[in-house]
């Protein structure tokens, strides 16, 4: 299985060495605006370093990627436990909802960016498998007493159905390591592939994947617009982009409760369970710095997605954005 990978990541080796840079390698005909930061729109080729946000701090852009890397490197071991503690297990429902929205048919190729410990990919494979089994059951039921004509026609025609494949791509090797261990423990051997890569410069060819998901990862990307454009690039025509991310809560009362919980409880949990206050402080701050639902929808449309829709979960705490490359 490993030997017969299609869409083989071409730049994996290079990436292990230049994982930190946020500078993009110029590919043929890259328009000027790809190097823009998400906030300003100007055409002067910047030579001086631009600043961006890291939680509530301001840091130079090239530092942000490094610091995000360090955050996830330190939380990797306790990532899943902390997810359960912080969201009281609700993150599982959010991810299940993402899969239901995706409704993947068997045989699709998934790129799970910032996939880290592989939550989305495992669910994807399970879902596709259960759909396939249901299809087979229905077909078997319909074919209970095939006539000799049908048997003769089907003889030798067993087409190999396309297997679903999930590619987990993450910039952080620690997270991937944890994910691989989880896969082994769960007994998932085929169908998942683990790749180190930067969401702003994916190590894949064009038009490779049917579905691109990024769950709770895009707010950590330095240049979100670039990540969206990379998503457009690697998706097949007709492919779907799905983003599950924390977003703005519209209800003011809920918003106050949510803020209080985020800033008072979560960093404390981080310190107690994972021994890392600052990482979880960064986490809740970065949620506040992420654009709201409508703004992100416009960013997706700018990148070239069609039929962009979003769905609020838990009152806006989390939003699923969906777009198609048509």
């Amino acid at each position, binding site marked *: 299985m490993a030997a017969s990978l299609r869409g083989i990541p071409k730049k994996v080796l290079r990436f292990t060495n230049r994982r930190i840079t946020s500078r993009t390698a110029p590919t043929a005909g890259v328009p000027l605006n790809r190097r823009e930061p998400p906030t300003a729109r100007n055409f002067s080729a910047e030579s001086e370093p631009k600043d961006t946000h890291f939680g509530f701090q301001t840091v130079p852009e090239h530092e942000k990627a490094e610091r995000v890397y360090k955050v996830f490197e330190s939380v990797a071991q306790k990532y899943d436990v902390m997810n359960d503690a912080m969201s009281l297990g609700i993150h599982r429902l959010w991810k299940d909802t993402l899969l239901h929205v995706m409704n993947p048919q068997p045989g699709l190729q998934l790129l799970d960016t910032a996939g880290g410990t592989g939550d989305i990919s495992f669910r994807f494979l399970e879902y596709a498998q259960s759909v396939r089994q249901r299809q087979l059951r229905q077909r078997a039921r319909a074919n209970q007493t095939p006539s000799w004509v049908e048997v003769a026609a089907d003889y030798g025609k067993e087409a190999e159905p396309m297997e679903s494949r999930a590619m987990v791509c993450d910039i952080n090797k620690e997270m991937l390591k944890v994910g691989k261990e989880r896969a082994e423990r769960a007994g998932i051997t085929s169908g998942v592939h683990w790749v180190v890569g930067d969401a702003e410069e994916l190590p894949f060819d064009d038009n490779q994947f049917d579905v691109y998901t990024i769950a709770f990862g895009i707010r950590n990307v330095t240049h979100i617009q670039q990540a969206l454009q990379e998503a457009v690039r690697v998706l097949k*025509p007709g492919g779907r982009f799905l983003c599950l991310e924390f977003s703005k809560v519209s209800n003011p009362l809920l918003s106050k409760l949510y803020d209080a919980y985020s800033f008072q409880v979560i960093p404390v949990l981080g310190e107690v369970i994972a021994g890392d206050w600052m990482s979880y402080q960064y986490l809740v701050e970065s949620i506040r710095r992420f654009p709201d639902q409508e703004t992100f929808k416009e960013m997706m449309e700018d990148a*070239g997605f069609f039929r962009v829709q979003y769905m609020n979960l838990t009152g806006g705490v989390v939003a699923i954005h969906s777009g198609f490359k*048509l």
Partner: protein
Amino acid sequence: MATALLRSLRAAVGVRRTLSCVVAQTCSSPQYSGLRRGFHRAALLRLADDSKSNQTVPPPYHHERFQAQEPQKGSSFSSAEEASASDPDAQHEDPQPNTSYQDQSGEQAEDYETEDQLQARILTAALEFVPQHGWTVEAIAAGAETLGLSAASAGMFDNGAGDLVLHFVAECNSQLAKILAEQHNHIQLGHVEKKTTSEFLRDAVETRLRMLIPYIDTWPQAMSLLLLPPNIANSLKHLSTLVDDIWYYAGDRSTDLNWYTRRAALTGIYNTTELVMVQDSSPDFEETWAFLDNRIRDVVNMANTAKQVQSTGEAVVQGLMGAAVTIKNLTGMNQRR
């Protein structure tokens, strides 16, 4: 002004990038030939705009086509822009030209095909997989794949299989309307004689029901989908337009209660005949057409009977009035003193 210049410069740069992509992809997507034509038209429109603002030199391999078409593109550009501005579903809500041209050629062509049209094409392509997969999202996914799109694009349809069935019903209804209009034309031109109302209704309902024959095995599933709460409003709408069309071409111009009674009657006939057809196993559905004949005859009989009852009633009333006057005459009560 400066921003407009910058925007057009950016557009030109984006166009150059996409044109290079197009050249690279020329051999890779034969299904997209129609879309690529659309793209080339779009690219030329944008180049015409750029040259007007004197910002960039168009790429050399497009130069001669650009030269030849620039004069008329100038005028068609404004009309295309108006068209896309007025079309509420065109592309997406962003009306600014600067952002749409960084995209690859497949999306570029979306300017010339709205999302609705693309959805309609996918659903039409999905119909051929219905006998195999039933009226389900899998059929839509298979249809999308024949168009060269990924199966994930079936997620565009929020209503899933319901969208597919409604699309099919709408297509059948518009096809029937076309056939009826043609027949009407022939009658106007005198090629064919006018049919009686009952014959016309019978033929129209039979034509419409015959469109179901390729999908008759899975039609019960479709009927149940049409009855689901999210779909029931749309399915009733389609049914009422169907019945209205048939009566219109049958010549009904009534403006009184007859309008409602006629349409109610035809709705009943259509639905019951459809149910009979679904479980009919006779050759070429003869029993269904016989059933249809009987129902139409019943309705016509009812109409005649109603008229007869009314005139009989009037006659009876007049007779009674006459008898009363005679009795008054006989008893001498009618005399004026």
